[in-house]
């Protein structure tokens, strides 16, 4: 059979499901100030194309994760990379849920024969030399606008993500008795994984006491409940499942992708931040993959803050709503635990690339190439993305095995 990859940039109708065939992650163990996000995007895509040993002329599609400022890396990346005659191009934006949406869109395009090889990329460079994270582009805008925006500034709200997630976590604590120590167990478990990941920024092990001693940011969050900030980029290359079998890396099949966006009209009766879109997205992704929670070998859960992991575990159904605290407190998420979660350290300890952090580690684990931190017999990896402030959610099932349906995200 002639695969789309071998001959043309459009795949041919009736292609099999989609797979991830290439991965590129820039070095985020050190802060790089000498490059722009655009340069980092190019570097990651080059690494990913080298990984699957495809020339740039084979790229038919490019999907860009719109970053914080939504201006630095967009469709103009095509020209920066000298890519001509693409048949798929878009900048997509659902915050940390975007990676899943991009994988879904690329899967559709590949399955419908609209493009045979598609690059997906996240790149950002918020950190500036000589200043701390608080002065990065993820920091505080200088000067608020008039009117209601000015009023927020009067109160001391400058749009900090920590405040918004803290409000959700605080309510969870009120409703269910969740504790800071339980949130801390997530941070400790992930640092344990990061210690085994040469790509991780923070590899020094921490204890629950370290977590409790870290400075308070916005209650209940301490410093060690918060994600890192990184200058870096991650790219993945997708192709049809058939084409993937002829490429050098072990194929990672996209067995299912779901989205869930519950909305927050701000009215009585909605309990925003307690139930997230993970409820719908997780169910849908598992349905497409024709597997159950018990089949999931590793979890890569979006971790803007520790709480994001806790509520997502509940919403996926690994435990009942409200039981996330005791569920994570026994260490099951960590190295040697029964539910390996964020096995590269996640964004709390690994590197901060939005939905591409869990996605990249999902690919590494499904390939079986995670070295010291490899989850044994890892077939199915459940990957989540969460965007806005728990507003948007996507779930991907990545698998080493193709599955009987072999229809990928269209399942």
């Amino acid at each position: 059979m002639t695969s789309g990859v071998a001959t043309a940039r459009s795949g041919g109708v009736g292609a099999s499901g989609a797979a991830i065939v290439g991965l590129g992650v820039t070095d985020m163990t050190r802060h790089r100030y000498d490059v722009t996000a655009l340069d980092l995007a190019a570097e990651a895509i080059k690494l990913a194309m080298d990984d699957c040993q495809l020339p740039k002329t084979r790229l038919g599609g490019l999907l860009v994760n719109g970053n914080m400022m939504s201006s630095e890396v967009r469709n103009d990346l095509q020209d920066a990379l000298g890519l001509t005659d693409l048949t798929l191009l878009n900048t997509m934006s659902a915050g940390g849920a975007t990676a899943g949406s991009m994988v879904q869109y690329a899967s559709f395009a590949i399955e419908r024969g609209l493009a045979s090889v598609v690059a997906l990329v996240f790149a950002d460079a918020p950190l500036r030399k000589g200043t701390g994270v608080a002065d990065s582009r993820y920091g505080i805008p200088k000067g608020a606008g008039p009117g209601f925006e000015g009023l927020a500034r009067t109160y001391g709200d400058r749009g900090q993500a920590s405040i918004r997630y803290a409000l959700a976590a605080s309510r969870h604590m009120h409703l269910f008795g969740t504790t800071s120590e339980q949130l801390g167990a997530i941070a400790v478990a992930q640092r344990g994984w990061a210690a085994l990941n040469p790509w991780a920024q923070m590899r020094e092990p921490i204890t629950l006491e370290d977590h409790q001693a870290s400075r308070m940011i916005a209650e209940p969050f301490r410093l060690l409940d918060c994600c890192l900030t990184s200058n870096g980029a991650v790219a993945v290359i997708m192709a049809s499942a058939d084409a993937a079998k002829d490429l050098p890396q072990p194929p990672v099949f996209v067995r299912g992708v779901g989205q869930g966006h519950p909305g927050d009209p701000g009215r009585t009766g909605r309990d925003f931040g307690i139930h997230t879109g993970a409820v719908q997205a997780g169910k849908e992704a598992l349905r497409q993959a024709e597997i159950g929670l018990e089949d999931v070998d590793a979890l890569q859960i979006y971790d803007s803050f520790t709480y994001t992991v806790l509520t997502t575990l509940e919403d996926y159904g690994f435990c009942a709503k409200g039981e996330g605290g005791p569920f994570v407190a026994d260490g099951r998420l960590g190295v040697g635990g029964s539910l390996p979660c964020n096995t590269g350290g996640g964004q709390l300890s690994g590197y901060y690339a939005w939905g591409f952090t869990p996605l990249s580690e999902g690919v590494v684990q499904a390939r079986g190439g995670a070295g010291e931190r490899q989850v044994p017999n890892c077939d199915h990896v459940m990957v989540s993305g969460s965007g806005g402030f728990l507003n948007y959610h996507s779930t991907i099932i990545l698998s080493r095995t193709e599955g009987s349906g072999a229809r990928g995200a269209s399942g």
Partner: protein
Amino acid sequence: MNEERLVQRPSPTPDLESQPFFDAASRSELLVRACPACGAFAWPVAGFATCQVCWAHGLEWTRASGLGVIHSFTRVHSVPKDDDPAWAPFLLGVVELREGIRTQIIGLLPADDGHVAVGDPVEVVFHPTREGVIVPWFKVTSLTAGSVGA
């Protein structure tokens, strides 16, 4: 929380859209939005005057009770470099109003004895800010100190 510090907070600058809200605050009245078509209430959001329930355009201002309960809150422990370091720690929260809507993130004040918890009843209070504009805060009502807390 030191209520004497409120007068040192930077004032918002009322614009065309928010002027009625701040004018009312100077009279110790809290305004919210109401839909002229279906009557649904809404907390005012900058740049948007369409009813989220029936999609009628042209939300109007209406006086709210100023009473509600704390849906959630956080004590924030640091301020940006260009803000007053003495302001931290301060309280921000979301209030569920008697009108059946929730506020955006808003400034909270604890009860006089310092009590604050999710579920506490609150009432709107008005304080002048640094440049003189009077703005609303929600304060835990003293009656509830010791009520079921977080």
